[in-house]
């Protein structure tokens, strides 16, 4: 079973904490801090899930979502939006995101979302 997760988030601490948490829950995690690195990882890996921050230094999470869907159609995607950012959330769902989750992120809640997909 593919349990590989991609986290795309430019906050290094966020990546570290979430990586540890998901690893403990038996996921294999790769992370990228920008869109360019995320696309490189997509070229080389098949992910079961991708957790994408909307605001990144070089592109937004929806742009990465679109790239991911062309390379890895089966990957489930979760977009992380700012607190109360409903517009981005709706747009993400329109573009094929499987779920969105607003900041702040509680790792346990995120795990429930992943398991529910």
């Amino acid at each position, binding site marked *: 079973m593919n349990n590989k997760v991609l986290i795309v*988030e430019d*906050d*290094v*601490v*966020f990546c*570290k*904490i*979430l990586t*540890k948490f998901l690893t403990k829950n038996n996921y294999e995690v790769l992370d990228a*801090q920008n869109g360019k690195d995320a696309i490189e990882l997509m070229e080389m890996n098949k992910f079961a899930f991708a957790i994408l*921050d909307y*605001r990144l230094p070089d592109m937004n999470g929806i742009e990465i979502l679109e790239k991911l869907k062309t390379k890895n159609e089966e990957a489930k995607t979760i977009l*992380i939006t700012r*607190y*109360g950012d409903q517009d981005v959330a709706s747009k993400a769902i329109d573009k094929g995101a499987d779920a969105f989750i607003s*900041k*702040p*992120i*509680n*790792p346990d809640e995120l795990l429930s979302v992943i398991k529910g997909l």
Partner: protein
Amino acid sequence: MKLSISKNVHLVEPGDFEPTDHWYPRVLNSNIHPLVAYFLNLSHEQIAERYHRLHPQSDLETLMEILRYQPQYFRWAGTDLMHVTNHEGNRKLTVIETNSCPSGQKSMPLLDLNVEQGGYKRLIEQTFKPMVNAHQMEGALAVIYDKNPMENIGYAATVADVFGENVYLAKFDKADIDPPVKFEDGVMFIKNEKEEWVQIRASFRYVTQEPWTRLPEKTKTLILNPIEACLAGGRNKEIASAAYDVFNEKYKDKGIGIFTPKTFRKVKYAELQGHFDRLGGSMVIKVPDSNAGQGVYTVISQSELDHAMSEIDPNDEYLIQELIHSNFSRNLDPTSAWYHVGTIPDSKGRSFAFDLRLMMHATEEGIRPLAVYSRRSRFPLNQELPEDMNSWEVYGTNLSIKGEDGWTYADERLMLFDIRNFGQLGLGIDELIKGFVQSTMAVYAIDQNAIKSYGNSAIKDYINH
């Protein structure tokens, strides 16, 4: 824990401390060396008495006064020392620098296996908490940082546990054009999940990259350490050196002094060549406010001097120190040269230069040692340096490596003070005592300089009680 409540801010909750996240993996499985544990439990009276026996000219009462000192600004510090010897075999611990945001917890084996938060808890409980409790102000608690997430998440989790409340963990980066931390009239604010500014009553601070660009003086929010500790020498080698000189002058009649390599301050770019020649063709050039091994150049040849001069700013002034030598240094004045003692030779006969990082904190009883570890150089002291190799490989001990995607470290050169590594350093309890007393004197000197420059701190009344 609530991740990313706003950009670069996390909310750490009581119960979030996970030991595996706040120590290097090899430290988690290490056991502290019994001699180091014994040292960490010595009383001030034992330390002073022993130091006095090792240095009979030192005044015991003055030693006690310094060990019991209550810093007003510089209440958490880390000193880098080197174990050196001279041509007569007179061994010393020499102070290389003193740091106001020292790393070290993640490299320190547990002193007490029953206290899983180890040194994190001792620092927060014995230093930060009493200060916060005495500070009358409304607001939340925070940890602000720009490096070292492993330790800073640990500190935030410990603060949350010790105070029983949520803690804002905020990255306060030099390059961030929209940082989540701001100051207004000396009060710190951090952005919350609604992008609103939350007032902070007290903050633990690990902001290391030119912190004076972001942190004001005389803050109303209590900060450990405040910026004054950096400005008075905790993050400036030039000012620290001057503070040590003041200390040495003040206490020369008491038989004590801070021992450093011979130092020249405010050296202009054009004067570097002259110093190099006068020191016999070797020296260390330091950018005064550099840290993590960046901006420090060991120079043992004209080509290394030329290279260093091509990298540094011709308009700046530098701190020059005499190099601590290896077995292969030439043209030395034997009466003034100091040499690395080095590690005990390994099975291949190699002995490496190493430093000793000693983290200290101010407690109710005075300054206490908190964590200690060593870092060794890459290339041994007792082999000829290959022509294509830089002398930093022999003399540089810093583990930090600045990569494209942030800071990493050279694990293979980290020497823990555990059962496995400590014996390789050739240090005994007397060296640890000497190093601690030297470090305490350095903290005292810098704190006194802060008081002289910025007046008494707001916590003066608290520490006098």
